[in-house]
């Protein structure tokens, strides 16, 4: 067992590296290439520290430390378990690739690299938080930086979309904060493990209202069906890198929050509400897929596709149990990578790009050997494992229908953008195309060698069901 000082460094490093580097880079001109590359190197170091943390977590179980060296029960708990680490790894990977993409196309703002680093610091902080209010603070750090990021557009038209994004997400944050305060009121503690233990002793009738509020807040963040209205307005017209970060990194907050607060802290309430969760997931899949098929603008189709894809995660969450949680985690990870490839490739032109986009499209549709097949397979397995035969049949039919529709709209985009011969349009910079192709290759590799990711997801799900410490 590693000693406590190594633990402390392990858990704090992924948050500290991007934070300090962001503070330094915010004073410099981020438009210059070497500063962008310095930020990318910082993100790479952060990713390496997360890999180190991951090896420690997978070998020895959850790594915990108390910030500031306080005694247990008095200090803020930082906790790195497989669930937090897997989400942190995929989020940092997507942000790093989006940064490299934007550097190769030319950064337009001085603050852009520092912003991405701040988002990374906020995301890592919340994935590694063991204290509910600390989670909220890092959540706000990441969200505030992302409000500024959605304003990253060439002209000031579409600034209104950034404003809408900010207002709607702030509403979600306030509801979440009210939920945390209510959890504190009824359990008397902010430590997640203590809340879990004490919430089980209380009457579910009261706790389920809090669960519903927290569920609503995270669904707003994810863009699930009844709370999706802000998504298309924000994604249309935004830069490819920003859209990739919004859907590939920031949406993970929603998935992680639902898994941690729903399945981890309030599992009994999640079970009580599983019917509603399944219905919402179903509506989201159907609505997202149908809207995506009927749209013409690439960004709009991808935005509605994002709404549909998170429906699968919610579906798996509603089914519950180790199979369901594994499917939810696996699908979230694969979806983040998919959306990264699709949004980034949709913004480019040139020979390699169509291949990358096709791989991303296959992945969204769930066709092997792309990684999306893993996600769909896991959700199928979870659907079959549902309680009653009728529900299982309905879910499997629904997942198949969603997959077919996603195949349809992905290749509609491909046909519109890449098949029509456009000789007069020059290809985009080679570096950007290589970056996107690299991410698509990663999707292929994960699809061909799925064991590491599946094992990681199962370990992470085991954290939620209590199989592993």
């Amino acid at each position, binding site marked *: 067992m590693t000693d406590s000082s190594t633990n402390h460094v392990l858990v704090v490093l992924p948050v500290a590296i991007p934070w300090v580097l962001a503070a330094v880079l915010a004073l410099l001109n981020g438009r210059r290439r070497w500063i962008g590359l310095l930020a990318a190197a910082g993100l790479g170091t952060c990713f390496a520290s997360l890999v180190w943390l991951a090896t420690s977590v997978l070998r020895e179980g959850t790594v915990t430390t108390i910030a500031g060296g306080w005694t247990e029960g008095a200090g803020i708990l930082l906790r790195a378990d497989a669930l937090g680490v897997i989400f942190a790894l995929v989020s940092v990977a997507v942000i790093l690739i989006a940064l490299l993409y934007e550097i190769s196309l030319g950064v337009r703002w001085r603050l852009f690299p520092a912003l991405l680093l701040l988002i990374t610091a906020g995301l890592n902080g919340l994935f590694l938080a063991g204290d509910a209010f600390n989670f909220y603070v890092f959540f706000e750090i990441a969200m505030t930086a992302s409000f500024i990021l959605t304003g990253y557009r060439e002209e*000031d038209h579409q600034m209104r979309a950034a*404003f809408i994004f900010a207002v709607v997400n702030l509403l979600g944050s306030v509801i979440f904060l009210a939920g945390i305060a209510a959890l504190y009121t009824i359990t008397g503690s902010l430590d997640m493990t203590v809340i879990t233990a004490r919430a089980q002793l209380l009457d579910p009738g009261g706790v389920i209202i809090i669960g519903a509020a927290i569920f609503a807040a995270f669904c707003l963040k994810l863009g699930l069906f009844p709370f999706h209205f802000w998504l298309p307005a924000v994604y249309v017209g935004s830069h490819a890198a920003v859209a990739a970060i919004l859907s590939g990194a920031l949406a993970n907050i929603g998935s992680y929050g639902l898994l941690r607060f729903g399945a981890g802290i309030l599992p009994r309430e999640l079970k009580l509400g599983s019917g509603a969760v399944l219905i919402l997931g179903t509506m989201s899949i159907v609505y997202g897929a149908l809207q995506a098929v009927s749209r013409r603008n690439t960004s709009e189709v991808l935005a509605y596709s994002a709404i549909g894809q998170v429906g699968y995660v919610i579906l798996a969450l509603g089914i519950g149990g180790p199979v369901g949680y594994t499917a939810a985690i696996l699908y979230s990870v694969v979806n983040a990578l998919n959306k990264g490839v699709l949004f980034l490739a949709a913004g480019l032109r040139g020979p390699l790009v169509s291949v990358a986009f096709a791989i991303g499209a296959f992945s969204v549709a769930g066709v092997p050997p792309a990684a999306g097949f893993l996600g769909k397979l896991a959700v199928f397995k979870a659907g079959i494992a549902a309680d009653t035969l009728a529900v299982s049949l309905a879910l499997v039919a629904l997942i198949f229908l969603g997959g077919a529709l996603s195949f349809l709209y992905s290749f509609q985009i491909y046909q519109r953008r890449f098949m029509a011969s456009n000789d007069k349009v020059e290809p985009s910079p080679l570096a950007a195309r290589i970056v996107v192709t690299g991410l698509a290759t990663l999707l292929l590799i994960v699809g061909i060698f799925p064991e590491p990711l599946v094992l990681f997801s199962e370990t992470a799900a085991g954290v939620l069901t209590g199989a592993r410490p």
Partner: protein
Amino acid sequence: MILLAALVVSIVFAAGTYLLLQRDLTRVVVGIILISNSSVLFIIASGLMQGGAPIYPLASGRPDVASDPLVQAMALTALVIGFGVAALLLAMIYRLYAAYGNVDAEEIAVAEMREAEALDQLDESPEIEEIPAEEQDADPDERATTVKPLRTR
């Protein structure tokens, strides 16, 4: 006391929600400020107890009659976050005002739709966002107030 706190929280939240649905964007920001402050009140309400200041040495000598310091810390943090976010929203509104000349949500939406339609008449490459020639033929009354985008980078 708890009933009073609940009433106040709900009234402030309701006022904030009403403002959030207004046309004028400054009122929307005030609505957000009210809503985030209502959640701060909610946090404080979870620590409603009569007690001494939670600072050593304790006045009464018994730790269980001191006020809850954690609630006060949470409220302060939430207030600071709300303040930062309100400043950001006001900066966004100023940027919108500089671009469109007013802060009315409907008029800005109409202006944006007009610009988006004009852009759609270009070639199908939405990433190349230049002001097309068609836009200069638009109605001069509306166009006069829509200034060139702000170049304060």
